[in-house]
C-alpha cells in the first residue's frame, strides 16, 4: 500500500438504488455523452431494478460501483502511455492530454471503471473527487447519498473512522481475487 491511500466504504444494506450518486457525479462533472463514471447494479440480476427470487418473496438489493483506486492497479500497469497513474493519495487518475484512448485500461480493469470520453476519444474516470476532498469536502457521491450509505477516508490510517468501520462491519472488497488490492469496501 502506498504511504497514503484514500478509500471508500459502501453499505449496500442502506442502498435503495436511486442512483443519486451516479447522477450527481455525471452532472456535477458534466461527464459527456453516454459515459458515467459510476454505476449501480441490482445484486444478482442482469436487469436493473429487476429483483431476484419469486413472488411473493423476491429479493431487491443494490450495489453501487465505481473505480476501486486499487493499490496495485492493472490499468496503470497496462497503460502504454503512462497517462493512467496513481498519485500520492493513492488516487488513480488519467492525464487526458497524454492518453491516446486505446482502452487497454478498460479491458484489464476487473471493475470496468475507466470510461471512454467519446467526444475527445480519451479515457475519463472517477477521481475520488480530489478537487473537493483536498478542500475538506466529501466526494459528490458521498455527500449526495440520501441513505448515507458511503464513507470516504484514509484507509491507510488504521485509526481513521473508515478503517475502524471497515473492521467493525467486516466489510469486504469486491473481486479481490484479481489481486489489484482495491480500496473500496462493501458491507
Amino acid at each position: 500500500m502506498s504511504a497514503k491511500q484514500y478509500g471508500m466504504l459502501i453499505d449496500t444494506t442502506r442502498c435503495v438504488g436511486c442512483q443519486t450518486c451516479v447522477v450527481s457525479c455525471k452532472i456535477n462533472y458534466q461527464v459527456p455523452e453516454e459515459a458515467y463514471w459510476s454505476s449501480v447494479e441490482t445484486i444478482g440480476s442482469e436487469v436493473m431494478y429487476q429483483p431476484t427470487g419469486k413472488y411473493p418473496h423476491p429479493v431487491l438489493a443494490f450495489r453501487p460501483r465505481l473505480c476501486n483506486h486499487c493499490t496495485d492497479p492493472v490499468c496503470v500497469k497496462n497503460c502504454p502511455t503512462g497517462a493512467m497513474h496513481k498519485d500520492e493519495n493513492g488516487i488513480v487518475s488519467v492525464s487526458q492530454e497524454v492518453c491516446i484512448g486505446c482502452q487497454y485500461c478498460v479491458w484489464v480493469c476487473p471493475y470496468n471503471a475507466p470510461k471512454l470520453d467519446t467526444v475527445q476519444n480519451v479515457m475519463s474516470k472517477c477521481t475520488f473527487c480530489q478537487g473537493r476532498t483536498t478542500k475538506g469536502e466529501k466526494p459528490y457521491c458521498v455527500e449526495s447519498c440520501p441513505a448515507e450509505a458511503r464513507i470516504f477516508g484514509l484507509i491507510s490510517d488504521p485509526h481513521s473512522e473508515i478503517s475502524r468501520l471497515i473492521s467493525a462491519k467486516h466489510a469486504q472488497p469486491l473481486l479481490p481475487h484479481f489481486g489489484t488490492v482495491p480500496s473500496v469496501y462493501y458491507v
Partner: protein
Amino acid sequence: MKKLTTSKTFKDAKITRRTFLKGVGAITVTGSLGMAGVLGGNTRQVKATEDAPIKYIHSCCTVNCTSRCHLKGHVQDGRIVAVTPGLLPGRDDYPNACLRAMSYAQRLQDPTQRVLYPMKRVGERGEGKYEQITWDEAFDLIAAKLTETKEKYGSHAASFFTMSGNLAKLAWESTTRLGATFGGTTYSTEGLMGDHGASMGMNLVFGQARGGHDTRDYMNSKLILLWGRNVADTHTSELRYIIKARENGAKVVMIDPRQCSNAAVADQWIPIRPQTDPALALGMMNYMISRDLHDVAWLKANSCAPLLVRNDDGQYLRLNGSYAVWDEKSKSIVPAGTAGVDPALSGEYVAADGVKCHPSFVDLAKEASKYTIAVTAEICGLEEEVVEQLAYEYATMKPAGIRMGQGMQRVYNSFAPFRTVATLAAVAGYIGVSGGGASHMGGTSSINPIPGVTVPDFNFAEWSNTGDAPFIEKKSSQLYNMIENDEVKFLWIAVSNFINQSPDANRVIQDILPKVPFIVNVDPFWTWTAKYADLVLPGKTHWEVWDLLVRSPWVMLDQPAIETMGESKSDCEICSGVAKRIELGHLWDKTDEEWIRTFMTSEHPAFAAFDWDKWVQEGIFTRSDGIFDPVYAFKDQKYKTLTGKFEFYTEKLKQFGQEVPSYTRMLEDPQGDLGKKFPLVCINYHDRLNVHSQHMLYPALRIVSSEPEVQINTVDAEARGIAHGDKVKVFNDRGYCILKAFITEGIAPGITAIANGWTPEQYIEGNHQNLTHLTINPVEEFISQTNSAFYDVLVEIEKA
C-alpha cells in the same frame, strides 16, 4: 506530476450543447415552437472556463415532493454547474439534494426545453404551431380577453387554475391572487390532482389535514410500517432516519403493491392489492379487539369510542348539548368528560327518553369483525400467515409507528385509507405516543409559540389584500363539469402540467378544453398542456426568481442564480403585467424582490436577528424559536374534531353507511363485470427520477430510466405471451398507451404499474392518463370534494 484536466474539458460549451441537442430527439419541440432562433445564437453562448470563479447561490427546491430541500448552487459564468445539499442550521444531519434537484437545475438551463418568449398559437390546438409575440402584445391580449369575458359573462367566467409545480410563495399564489383580485374563479386543487383523500381521511379522525412524527422519532419504534409510502423516492430527505431506526433494531415493513425502492431496505414487503388497505387495517383491528390486544384505556380517554350513539338515527346522543357515555360505576348515562367515571365500550343502554343507544366502539368492532384473517387475506391478496403476523407484531411490538402515503388514497372512496389506518393506530393506542402515530408527511410545526406574542410572523398583509372583488373558490373536482356546462370562458393555467397530471386525458382534450374559448398557460417548459393553450407565456423556475418558502423553523430564499432564459418572467411579474392593464395595478405595484422584502419585515421576536444581506448570502434564515429536537403530533391528545376526540365515528356519514371506517371494493373491480374485459389493475406510482412531469428525461437521468415501462408480474406476462422489453399496448374503453413491458416478480399478479409523470413524447404512443377517469364520488363531494382515483383503473395488456 501531470495536471488533471477533466474539469476543463468537460465544461466545454460545445459538449454541453451537443448533449442538450441529443436529448431533444425524443421531445417534439420544433422550430415552430420558437427554438430555431434560440439555437441560432440568440441566447448567450455558455462558455465556462477553468479560471472562472465558482460562486455559491442557494435556492429552495420548490417542486412538490415532500422534502423542500435547501440547495447549494455552484454557479460559474452565470451557469449552475453543480448542485449540492445546502446547510440546515441546527440540523447538521439533515441536508439533502437528490438526483431530481440536480437534473432539474440542468434541464432549466436547456433552451430547447424552455418556453423562451410569449408565444401565440397559429395552428390548431395541440398541433404545436406558435408565433413569437412581445410581452406588450401578450398582456394586451389577455387584458382584452378578460375584459370581454367580464362584460359578456361576468368576471367569475374567468378561471385561474393551479396545481403544485412551484410551491414558493409568489409562484404558487400569484395566479390565484390575480383571479381573486379580478373576481375570477379559483380552485382548491387537491381533489383533481389526487392528494385530497389523505386530507379528508386525516380531517375526519384528527380534525386536521396533516400531522405526524418527525422521522427521527422512529428511533423509539420497535416496528415501522411504511404504508403506501415509498419514503426513499417520495420523501427522500427522510430516508436516512428510517434506515437508522432499522439499524437501531426496529423492524421495517413496506406495504405496497409494488416492491418499491424502500422495500430494498425493509425487512419485509407486503404486496397488498390496491384499494384494499382499509380491509387490512380492519382485519388487524379485529385481530386485536378479538384478542383483547387493543388499548382500552387509551380508547376510553382519547377517542370517541365510549361516546354513545343512538340506535334509531346513528347520531351521537346528547345530554343538554354534551356527548354522553355509560358510566360503569354509577350504572347511568352521564355527560362525556364527567370526572371519575368509567365509560363502557360495549353494551346497549336506554336513555331517559327511551332511546336505545350504544358506545360508538361497538360499531367499529362490528365493522372490523367482518374481517377475519381469512377474509382479509383473500381481499388483500396476501397469505393468511402474513396478515396474522403483521397484526400480531403491530399489536405487540410497542410502540409501532405508521408512515402513511398518498399511494393508498388515489382510489374511489379515497377518504377511507388514511381514516382507517389511523383508526388502527388509535385502537392500538399509538396516537400521540413517541415511536407510534399514523403520520401523514413529516413532522409537525417545529417552532415554539412565544407567550404573549400576537403579531403575525410574516408581513403578508398587503399580499393578502385582494381588493373588493368577491373571492370565488370552487372544487377542482368540478372543473370538468363546469367547463362542460359552459361556465368557463377563459382559463389561465399555471404551475401545472394540467393535462399530464389530471385524469382522463382523452376526455380533457376532446371534450373539455375545446369548450374553453381562450386558454393561457404559464410554464417554464413546453409541456403537453402548453400545446393546447392559445397563449403560452415563459415562466421561471425557483433558480431564477426572488421568492421564499417557509419550512419551519427555516425560511428559505429563492433568488436569481442564472441569467434570464429568453424573455421569461416570474408568475408574479406576469400577473402584475396583466393587472396593470385591467385597472388592478394598485394591488400589484411591487417587484418580486420588493414583495419578499416586505414579507420579511416582521415585528415577531423570532425574526429579531433577521438580516437581508445575510439571508441572500446563505439562502436560509433560522427562526430563533425553532425546535430542532424530534417532535410529534397529538402528544397533548387534543383533537380539532367535533367531539374533541380522535373521532373514528363520523355521525354525518351515517346517511352514506360510512359512519365508521370501512372497506369498499374498487369502482373498477377486477372481480366484477368490467374485470372480465379488463382484468388488470393499473396504478401510476411515483418513481425515483421525477416529481410529476418536471424532471422527465433530462439526459443525465437516462441511466435511471430512459422511457416509460409498464411493470407486470411474470405470470400475467406469460399468459399474454409478453417478454421483457416487448412493446405492449395498455388499454381500456377510455384509451390506450404503447410502451415497453418490464417483467418483474416485484409486483403482485393482477397488478400493473406505470410511473406517473411521463409525457406523450416519451411514450411510443399515448399516455397513462388516457386510461384514468374522473368519477364524481357523492360521499367525497359531501365531505369535501372528489379525489381523482388514478389507481382505481382496470386495463388489458397485449403485445403491440
